[in-house]
């Protein structure tokens, strides 16, 4: 994995890559164009401008970069790796450009018909709610391809209740369920979650406010059930317990949304919980069974639990 080092990036560039039918340039590349930032660019650009350009090894692309304030251009041909002149280290955005071009070559070019179809509309069968943690991207872990999973990521993969009111997650749920009509909602928790640790660390008495504390309190039900069930265990074990409890708490919160409950009852929508443990690389999943009309007993149950390892 390349180390991404801090380095100033060139301000404003467009990577269009090369037209390629077999992964190599067969027609002249489109020019890079600079989008002049509408924001106060000039004020931050007193330092010497470092322009680092990367060109994919095989295609010969013509990439022109110009910076509006200084108005000079450079033209490069063929394979060339330009190192940062000052530090002799790779510019992180050069790395991103390289990866984007590779993504384009491997996916967009190779499967153009599929991508052209995707450009018209998305019809994902999944909505995924995952943590923002850099280690747990559901596309990576579950191999979701473009078009498969409408994905929300927030701190500790929490789903607030309908009564909680406006939240970014609620808006996304409404879009996924009512507009995209996804068939599955998957809430994925994970090991060593910093957000859950923050939830378990909340003190009962009033404490100084922070955004983190005000958000993770959405999972307070999970914290309560964890304290009740595992209060005698070590803090770390309590956090592990809470990571899973909060998934179930979120699943129950999903059912507080009228349009979600309706579709679940109609059999059009399934709710799943999952837990990714990156310590031993296991993935546990289960499905929530909701029996609205059940007389007596619990309306909620878990079914189809399995662990993949």
């Amino acid at each position, binding site marked *: *994995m390349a180390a991404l080092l*801090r380095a100033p990036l060139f301000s*404003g*560039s467009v990577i*269009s890559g090369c037209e390629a039918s077999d992964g190599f340039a067969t027609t002249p590349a489109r020019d890079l164009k600079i*989008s002049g930032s*509408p*924001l106060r660019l000039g004020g931050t650009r007193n330092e010497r401008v470092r322009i680092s350009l990367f060109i994919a090894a095989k295609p010969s692309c013509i990439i022109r970069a110009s910076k509006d304030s200084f108005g000079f251009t450079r033209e490069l041909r063929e394979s060339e790796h330009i190192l940062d002149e000052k530090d002799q280290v790779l510019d992180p*955005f050069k790395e991103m*450009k390289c*990866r*984007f071009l590779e*993504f*384009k070559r491997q996916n*967009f070019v190779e499967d153009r018909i599929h*991508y052209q179809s*995707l*450009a018209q509309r*998305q019809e994902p*069968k999944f909505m995924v709610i995952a943590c*923002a*943690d*850099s*280690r*747990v*991207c559901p*596309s*990576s*872990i*579950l*191999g*979701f391809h*473009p*078009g*498969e999973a*409408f*994905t*929300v*990521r*927030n*701190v500790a993969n929490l789903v607030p209740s309908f009564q909680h009111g*406006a939240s*970014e997650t609620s*808006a*996304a749920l*409404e*879009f*996924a369920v009512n507009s995209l009509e996804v068939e*599955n909602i998957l809430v994925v928790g994970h090991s060593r979650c910093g*957000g859950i640790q923050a939830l378990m660390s909340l003190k009962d008495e009033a404490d100084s406010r*922070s*955004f*983190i504390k*005000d*958000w993770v309190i959405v999972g307070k039900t999970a914290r309560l059930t964890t304290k009740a069930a595992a209060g005698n265990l070590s803090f770390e074990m309590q956090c592990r317990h809470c990571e899973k409890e909060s998934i179930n708490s979120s699943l129950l919160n999903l059912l507080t949304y009228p349009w979600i409950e309706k579709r679940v009852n109609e059999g059009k929508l399934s709710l*799943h919980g999952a837990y990714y443990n990156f310590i031993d*690389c296991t993935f546990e*999943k289960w499905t929530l069974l909701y029996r609205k009309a059940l007389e007596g007993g619990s309306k909620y149950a878990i079914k189809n639990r*399995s662990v*993949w390892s």
Partner: protein
Amino acid sequence: MEINMQEMEPVERMKSGFEHFKKEIYEKKQEVFDPLKEGQVPKFMVFACADSRVCPSVVLNFQPGEAFTVRNIANMVPPYDQTKYGGVGAAVEYAVLHLKVENIVVIGHSRCGGIKGLMSVKDDGTTSTDFIEDWVKICMPAREKVKAEHAVLPFPDQCTKCEKEAVNVSLENLLTYPFVKEGLEKKTLKLIGGYYDFVNCEFETWEI
């Protein structure tokens, strides 16, 4: 792949994906994954849309551990407000103060349903959704700018303009968070705008 992923039963689809990840990636890159068990030290925080077509890990090939990633409708960042939409604030606070990321990237994209929704909000302010319209109105300044400067453009082109302007609004909103402002002043933090056009497969970046 010969198997049509779209036709697989949902759980089978997930299982197949995980098994591939474990066998082909996790087990072959122990040197990457072992340190991640202890903690994450991402250099990037990324805001991307929840749209199924624009996962930044896929498009920019972010490896596990590289990017603390928030995804919401239309990749929006609300202004500093401890009473509303604090979930985003929690993510920014965690990324900047605890993870100490060095770059925050806000990435917009083409054909964004959320931006289309913003551009479609009724002028009289009435709403017909529980949450969506209230959320996308965060970037109302972008819509107003586009409608003022590009009134003659067809609606789809206005939406394209708005997709990029909304990124700028979100970047400006980031500046209202004191810890972000401080990071910029100390030059420990950089704010970057991005735009992924999946119609033409282009990626654009700019810096503030």
